[in-house]
């Protein structure tokens, strides 16, 4: 047991250090790949062993405390280096609060188990270890190409992979932590790693965005420390399991939980904290993929979800549902106004995290299962999409979706994988949609929540559908598919296959794994709700007909007695079918261009963001105030 935990949490740190100190490309490749394989195996083995509680020796406890303070001082150093007052103030606050807490309040005699794995934690470990590893492996050829473009004298890859791989360990630690101070430590490690990774390229804008990420997450850190102190004062324990066992919270404890959830909101980049995650896209694509899919932001929703039993049925719960639903709606609206592919993905991430948090806030067994499923499916689809955009960007030199028009012509494989990725976020029978379905069913009693979810879900359709549509296009038969390195194609194909397999495995996953895992206690009393709402997915085989139908449609599409012709241009078209030009004055061919509606006058980013931030800030105050 302890060996597995060592592998999952400490091995990435060691592997990261190996990458950092051994500056050989082949050693790095080997280390990252091997770490990925070991993490995958270890996470599966851990799942096989089931729930556990693990007492760490006092040595580890002290080590974590020491490292925690060391890390805070490193952050403080960066605060001074960047001359950023906010970071300085927030970090000093954390050091003072934490120091005071450790020295004067905490009873060091009582030990709580440091780590524990319940179903939620184990599922999270799987996501982090498997998807995170795939992203790291994708990063190997990507970074080579990336640095090739930058013409660096000295490779910065060792540092990059140090933080990338370390990140996985920190995430595993975070989700497995039972001692809430350990949770705080790993929370800070992820903050620091993301700061280093976002600023990796060292450009002015990268540094600026990294700084923003650091100070915003420090706000989360302060909220978390405060939450920990309040929670300890009320319950007298540091153990999360012990806190949860105390049942629904009330009074001051609820405020503590509210603060911890606020820390989760910041980590999950919920409105009005979305700007750090949007800024994070300046980093190389593997970083964005990691931050958006399996780590970092998922740490935020994990925390909100972890404490959901404590605020069940309280006003705080409604507040969280409202905040989540509002973020879902607002970010879907903001995504419509974007043509930058990565930014669309970023807004969509924030939006989906909002949905997860809304589910946590609705806090019925069905909603909680929807949230967990959404975490899984979203991690797969979103990492796939980020890797796709990264691949496309390196090939065409742009991340603007307008430039991806007809991508199928030049990069058929990547285009198809991207289209599947997009559809997996949008359509039945893919998991994300089923989760949305469950969320809507669960939210039907909450007037404002369902209105926001309904609007948001329609907005989501718009920005995904137009992106998938414009990737399609014709292809000349003689053109050959694009070539890619194994480590680029491998993760893409594996994730794509994952999305497809999970789509078909959903009912099994739901019935055999998630319901027993997360609603076993409720199944007896609420069994009816779970079954009646979605029919226990009994109808599922019927949905599968869509898959069969799609295959039939594909067969029809490939049957070859089709005469090809140009698009209709009033008869004035000239040249090749795909070129798109018409006969202009003086018998010259004039190319034409069609582009998407971005509905700027309604959904413009600059126009909406301030209002959304104010509204979201108001909702958070409402949520926390309601807890008082």
């Amino acid at each position, binding site marked *: 047991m302890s060996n597995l935990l060592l592998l999952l949490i400490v091995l990435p740190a060691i592997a990261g250090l190996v990458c950092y100190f051994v500056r050989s490309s082949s050693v790095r490749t080997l280390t990252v790949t091997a770490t990925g394989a070991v993490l995958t195996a270890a996470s599966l083995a851990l799942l096989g062993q089931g729930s556990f509680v693990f007492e760490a020796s006092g040595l580890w406890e002290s080590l974590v405390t020491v490292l925690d303070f060391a890390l805070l001082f490193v952050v403080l150093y960066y605060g001074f280096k960047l001359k950023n007052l906010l970071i300085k103030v927030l970090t000093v606050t954390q050091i003072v609060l934490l120091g005071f807490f450790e020295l004067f309040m905490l009873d060091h005699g009582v030990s709580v188990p440091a780590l524990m794995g319940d179903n939620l934690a184990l599922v999270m470990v799987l996501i982090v270890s498997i998807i995170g590893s795939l992203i790291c492996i994708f990063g190997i050829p990507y970074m080579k190409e990336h640095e090739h473009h930058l013409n660096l004298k000295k490779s910065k890859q060792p540092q990059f992979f140090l933080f990338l791989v370390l990140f996985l360990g920190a995430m595993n630690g975070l989700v497995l932590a039972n001692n809430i101070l350990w949770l705080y430590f790993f929370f800070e490690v992820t903050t620091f790693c993301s700061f280093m990774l976002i600023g990796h390229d060292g450009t002015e804008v990268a540094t600026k965005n990294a700084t923003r990420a650091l100070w915003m997450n420090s706000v989360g850190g302060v909220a978390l420390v405060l939450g920990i102190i309040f929670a300890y004062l009320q319950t007298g324990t540091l153990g999360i399991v012990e806190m949860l066992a105390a049942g629904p919270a009330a009074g001051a404890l609820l405020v503590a939980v509210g603060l911890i959830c606020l820390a989760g909101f910041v980590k999950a980049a919920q409105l009005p904290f979305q700007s750090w995650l949007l800024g994070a896209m300046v980093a190389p694509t593997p970083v964005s993929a990691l931050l958006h899919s399996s780590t970092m932001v998922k740490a935020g929703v994990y925390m909100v979800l972890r404490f959901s039993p404590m605020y069940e049925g309280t006003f705080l719960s409604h507040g969280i549902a409202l905040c989540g639903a509002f973020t879902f709606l607002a970010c879907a609206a903001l995504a419509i106004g974007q043509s930058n592919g990565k930014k669309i993905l970023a807004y969509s991430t924030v939006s989906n995290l909002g949905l997860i948090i809304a589910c946590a806030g609705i806090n019925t067994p069905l909603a909680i299962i929807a949230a967990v499923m959404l975490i899984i499916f979203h991690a797969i689809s979103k990492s796939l999409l980020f890797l796709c955009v990264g691949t496309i960007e390196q090939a065409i030199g742009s991340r603007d979706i307008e430039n991806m028009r007809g991508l199928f012509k030049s990069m058929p494989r990547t285009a198809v994988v991207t289209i599947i990725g997009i559809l997996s976020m949008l359509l039945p029978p893919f998991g994300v949609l089923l989760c949305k*379905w469950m969320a809507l069913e669960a939210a039907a009693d909450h007037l404002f929540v*369902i209105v926001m979810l309904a609007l948001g879900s329609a907005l989501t*359709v718009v920005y995904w559908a*137009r992106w998938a549509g414009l990737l*399609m296009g014709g292809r000349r038969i003689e053109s050959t598919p694009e070539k890619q390195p194994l480590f680029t194609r491998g993760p893409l194909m594996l994730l794509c296959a994952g999305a497809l397999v999970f789509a078909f495995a959903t009912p099994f996953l739901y019935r055999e794994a998630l319901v027993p895992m997360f609603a076993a206690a409720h199944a007896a009393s609420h069994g009816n709700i779970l079954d009646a709402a979605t029919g226990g997915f009994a109808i599922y085989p019927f949905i599968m007909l869509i898959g069969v139908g799609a295959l039939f449609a594909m067969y029809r599409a490939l049957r070859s007695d089709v005469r090809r012709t140009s*698009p209709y241009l009033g008869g004035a078209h000239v040249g090749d079918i795909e070129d*798109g030009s018409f006969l202009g004055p003086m018998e010259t061919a004039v190319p034409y261009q069609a582009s998407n509606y971005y509905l700027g006058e309604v959904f413009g980013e600059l126009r909406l963001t301030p209002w959304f931030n104010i509204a979201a800030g108001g909702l958070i105050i409402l949520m926390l105030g309601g807890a008082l």
Partner: protein
Amino acid sequence: MEGLVLALLGIILAPMAGGLLAGTDRRVTAWMQSRQGPPILQAFYDVFKLFGKERLMVNRWQVLCCWIYLIAAALSVGLFFGKADLLLIFFVQAAGAVFLVMGALSVKSPYSQVGAQRELVQILTYEPLLILVFAGIYLVVGSFNVGDIMAYDAPLLRKLPLMFIVLSYALTIKLRKSPFDFSTSHHAHQEIVKGVLTEYSGPALAIIEVAHWYETILILAVCSLFWATNWFWMIVLLAATYFAELVIDNTMARMTWRWMLKYVWSIGLALTFINFIWLHAG
């Protein structure tokens, strides 16, 4: 088992009913314009003719997309008659609508591109309304299941009169009637030729037409839930609704998407809130 039979029956009968309805629609429209109009079976003639035409395409994605549109539309009708979950039915239908748009976007044609964007705005407009109508039904009946809703012992119209109006907005958009017919129109000419359908031709267009019949029947079936207690009144309600649609179609001018989005969302949301508050109060 019974559900499966009903579903199959729905899938087979819906296009027939939809085609007849389309024929009647044209006939009544002609009557309103003091013309004789085409035969009632005209819609079927059109579709059979289109099936007999050459496959003329810009690219193969269009074929894929139109087939998925048809399959999704047929499945959603089947699911409805098989008494499945309303939200599920809706999502399956939405999948088809999305594929229609994607097929139009796959072609580098200004007309179909603009049409596709407008179609997306239409989807954006009616989708939340439909979800809210379903949520309203849930608040009254306590279930999203079509079977449970049919079994409810009072007409829903009594408790959800405003939601019926909201639904009729969605119906008008979905039927591509004026003033919401700007992505494509049943009438011959439009400023963007035939909008989202411009680049579909021959059998592909026939497939889309059949899929459209399915969708019409689906939305009318949702309307019928509002008076599911009595066959006679259900038919009267449907006939009256459809006739109202025709009157609207023949008396309104085509508007813009900006107007539609603002107008329909504000009216729809206001009506929804009022009706939901009634429910909570009542």
